[in-house]
Structures are given as structure tokens and as C-alpha cells.
């Protein structure tokens, strides 16, 4: 019933392309430009639905939702430990090998450590964990929602006055947001551990001074930017995959189509948000 209300609201939304003619080249261009924005408008709508779904949760519904959030975090954040760990160890090793190779260009090990912290904590960790999250959980969300749409399970929930947004969207968005933060935590620890371990193979480098340099290089702003990025990217992945999953209407062939679109758009948006957040962070500093 709640989704019936949501549908009626959606029908009232202005249709951007309704008043322009498709034969006119200027109109065609306009339609093209508007359709570029339409994806973002739709995404904003999914976010708004999520937000209002979250604040409308009543106490028992909130408890049920939180149970689902925990399941989502276990699948997306905890079960991905081995994949993330393996990738993090390799990334840490590769980055450190490269830094050592060019270390003669740096005046001191402190600068080397500053670069390592900036590259790994600020940039690589949130982005790479997001890519893993897209592949593991984003695809699962898009497919699950597509199948639910196809089997009219949203109608079934509607019949029980269970709001699809509160039942499905809210736990997925919260779950992926926190999962990405957890994944980033693993990733940073394992990557830095692996980088420090590799650096020990270089002559004249000792663990004590390296750790001291690392602690000196690490700033609160680095950690904050990393956490904010991880949270935002996790949320963006969930919203994009929910949007594409809910676009499945009539046929099973729409599920793989929407899933692949969900993955591609998630990748693109993750890169865009990473750049945007980095730029804002450096400007603020």
C-alpha cells in the first residue's frame, strides 16, 4: 500500500521529455542532455525514498531491518575478507616495490611514507574495496531485486503492508555503506602491513623507524577522508544497483541487462565520486 502511494507520487513527477519533439535535431540534443541527467535524477529519487523509508521505520520494523542489515554486512563485509585480504597484500607489496625502486629520488623515508599513506589510505583503499563490493554485492542486489520484481513479490509485500523500500532498499543501502567501511579497514591494515614487510627486504631499513615514520605521516584527515569515501561509495553502489534492479519489469532477459548496466554505472560513479571527494578534501585542506 505504501508502494501504491509511492507509485502515484512517481506518476505525478514531471516527465522531462514529454513536451519536446523527437524529429527536431535541437530537441534531440536536448533529450540526449536531459536523459544524461535523468539517471542522476532517478538516483536521487531512490536516495530520497531510502531516506524517508529509513525515518518512517517503526520500532519492530526497525529491529527486523537491523537484522537484515547484519546479514548484509556479514555477506558483504565479513565474507569478503579473503578476497580483500589477498588483493590488499598484493597491492601493498607492488606499491612498496615501486616506491623503493624510486626511493633515491626522495630526500627521506618520511616522504616515502607520506606518499604511501596518501596513495593507499586516501585513494586506493576506498576505490578498490568498492570495486570488490560492486562485483560481489552490487550484482547480487540487482539480480535479487530483478527476480523479486519479475515474480511480483513487491505486490505480495504490499498486500502485507510491508513497504518494499523499508524491507529491501533500506537494509541494503545501510549494509553496503558499513560493509565498505569495514572492507576499507581490512584493506588498509593488510596493505600497509604488506608494504612494511616488503620494505624490510631493503638494506638499512628497520621496522621501528618505519613505523614511527608511518605514524608521523598518518593524519586524522587521511582517516576521515578514507571513511567518508568508503561510506559514500558503498551507498552509491547500493543505490545504483537498487535502481537498475527495480527497472526489471517483464522478462528474465532484463535481469542480466540491468545487472550489467548496474555494474558499469556503479564503476563509473565510484570513479567520479572518488575524484570529487579527493578534490573537495584537498581544497578544504
Amino acid at each position, binding site marked *: 500500500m505504501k508502494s*501504491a502511494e509511492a507509485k502515484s507520487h512517481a506518476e505525478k513527477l514531471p516527465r522531462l521529455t514529454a513536451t519536446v519533439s523527437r524529429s527536431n535535431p535541437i530537441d534531440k540534443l536536448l533529450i540526449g542532455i536531459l536523459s544524461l541527467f535523468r539517471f542522476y535524477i532517478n538516483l536521487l529519487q531512490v536516495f530520497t525514498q531510502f531516506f524517508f523509508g529509513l525515518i518512517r521505520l517503526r520500532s*519492530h*520494523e526497525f529491529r527486523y531491518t537491523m537484522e537484515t542489515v547484519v546479514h548484509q554486512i556479514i555477506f558483504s563485509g565479513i565474507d569478503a575478507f579473503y578476497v580483500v585480504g589477498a588483493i590488499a597484500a598484493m597491492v601493498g607489496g607492488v606499491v612498496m616495490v615501486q616506491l623503493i625502486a624510486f626511493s633515491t629520488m626522495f630526500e627521506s623515508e618520511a616522504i616515502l611514507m607520506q606518499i604511501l599513506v596518501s596513495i593507499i589510505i586516501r585513494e586506493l583503499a576506498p576505490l578498490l574495496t568498492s570495486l570488490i563490493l560492486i562485483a560481489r554485492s552490487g550484482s547480487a542486489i540487482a539480480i535479487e531485486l530483478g527476480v523479486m520484481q519479475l515474480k511480483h*513479490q513487491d505486490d505480495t509485500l504490499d498486500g502485507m503492508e510491508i513497504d518494499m523500500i523499508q524491507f529491501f532498499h533500506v537494509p541494503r543501502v545501510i549494509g553496503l555503506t558499513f560493509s565498505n567501511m569495514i572492507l576499507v579497514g581490512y584493506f588498509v591494515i593488510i596493505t600497509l602491513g604488506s608494504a612494511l614487510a616488503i620494505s624490510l627486504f631493503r638494506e638499512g631499513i628497520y621496522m621501528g623507524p618505519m613505523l614511527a615514520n608511518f605514524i608521523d605521516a598518518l593524519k586524522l584527515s587521511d582517516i576521515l577522508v578514507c571513511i567518508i569515501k568508503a561510506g559514500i561509495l558503498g551507498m552509491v553502489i547500493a543505490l545504483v544497483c537498487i535502481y537498475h534492479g527495480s527497472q526489471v519489469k517483464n522478462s528474465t532477459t532484463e535481469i542480466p541487462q540491468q545487472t550489467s548496466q548496474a555494474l558499469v554505472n556503479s564503476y563509473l560513479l565510484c570513479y567520479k565520486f572518488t575524484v570529487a571527494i579527493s578534490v573537495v578534501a584537498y581544497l578544504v585542506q
Partner: protein
Amino acid sequence: MIELKSVSYRSDSLEVNNLSFHLNAGETAVILGPNKSANSAFLKVCMGAHPISKGEVLFDGGALVKYGSDADMWRKICFISHEPALLDNLTVMQNAGLPLSYHLGWSEEQIFEKAEPVLKEFGLLHVARDFPSQIGKDDAKITQLARAAILEPKALLFDEPAAGGLNPEIFLRILGAFKYFQAGGTAVLFTTSSPSLAAAMKIPCYLFVEGRVAEIMEAHESPFPEIRDYVARIRNQAKQQSMAASTFFDRISAV
């Protein structure tokens, strides 16, 4: 119990104007109409889940308010969709108890205690721990009825029980379920496009054709030509079926 007073609404395929309908408490009735006559939308209007442009829908004498103002409406009216759509990641027991766990925070043990006798009554206890992919469509359909029975609603609205085919066994199980609801004082309203199902139920039958509604006994005198045409059509169909059946049985006797 449920009363539609001069209601106007729009569904995907139909515009309905000034529709009035009444279902008494504890009554079981069927709405018979041709395929794609927007029966689902009609049932959703009855439960206040479909927007109306005019008129009012009353439940238990009071105006049926929008979702949110009556937090317990999900217990009072149960709607069963024509698709046996259970949630794939929940077992039959969890599916049946979903409204209780979601809205009231019941534990699995509490749900089992409440649901066990109902599942037994509906012949589902042996599949209670199975997932929807492990059970048949018939059991899935009955699970939806069991879910409604667990909630002990005042009204049950069932959209097309015959969807996806109705073999004699499932027909008897649905009939048994309706009797269970009747015994509990629940009003049952279901829609179908199958005249034989409506006839076999031996309950009050209303025709719903192109947004017009009429009681079947008065349908031939209906002021609406759509209703009279539909009656003539189903009467003709019934005659043809009856002739075909008698020819078939004559052949068997000859053998």
C-alpha cells in the same frame, strides 16, 4: 464490512465510474468477470490500496483511511495476489509468519507456535521448513492462504484463485481454506474469470464487467448492456461445454 460508495478510479486498462458494492461481515462472495477486467485493481480499491478519484470506501462502518493512520490494517484485511509470490529466501514457515515477525517483531518460536496448527490444517506442516523453490505451485498458493489465516483477518481478498490452473485437489484445498475462514467469521471476497469455479463455489456471485457490477441473479435484467452481453456469452459457453461433455460421455458409454 466492506462498502464501496459511488467510487471512481482508474486502473491500467479501465476507467471505473460510480461503482457501488457491499460485502457483509463473515460473507463469502465471488466477483466474476472476463479476463483483464482489472479485478486486481477492484480488490485493491476494496482494501484502500488503490487511489480513488471520487466516492468513499468504508471498512467496518468507518471510512477506510490511507495507509499509515491505521497501523493495524495489515491484520484486518489480507490480500492474496494471483501469483503465488512467496519470498524465495524465506522458508514456508517464515513466509507464513512474515507479517508477524516484521510488524510485531515475533521470534521464530512464537511464529511456529501460532502457525503450526494453521499449517497442519492447510496440509503444509510437512513443507514448513522448505523454501519456495522446493515446493509446488499449489502449496505456494495455499501458503498464502495460511499466511492470511495466521493473522485471523476480518476480511480476505483473493485475486484469481484459478490463476495458473486449478486441478481438483487444489480446488478442494482452497474450498477447505475458505470454509476455515468462514468458520472464523472472516469475510472472503475473491475474483475469478472462470464461470465454472464461480458456479462450483455455491456462494453469492457478482459480475464485474467493464467497470459495472451486478448480482448474478439479477444480471439478465441489468440496465448495463455490458453485463447482459457477458451473461449471454457465459451462458452460451456453458451450453457448448455441456454439449461437448455429453458427447464425450456418450462415447464412453458406447465403448
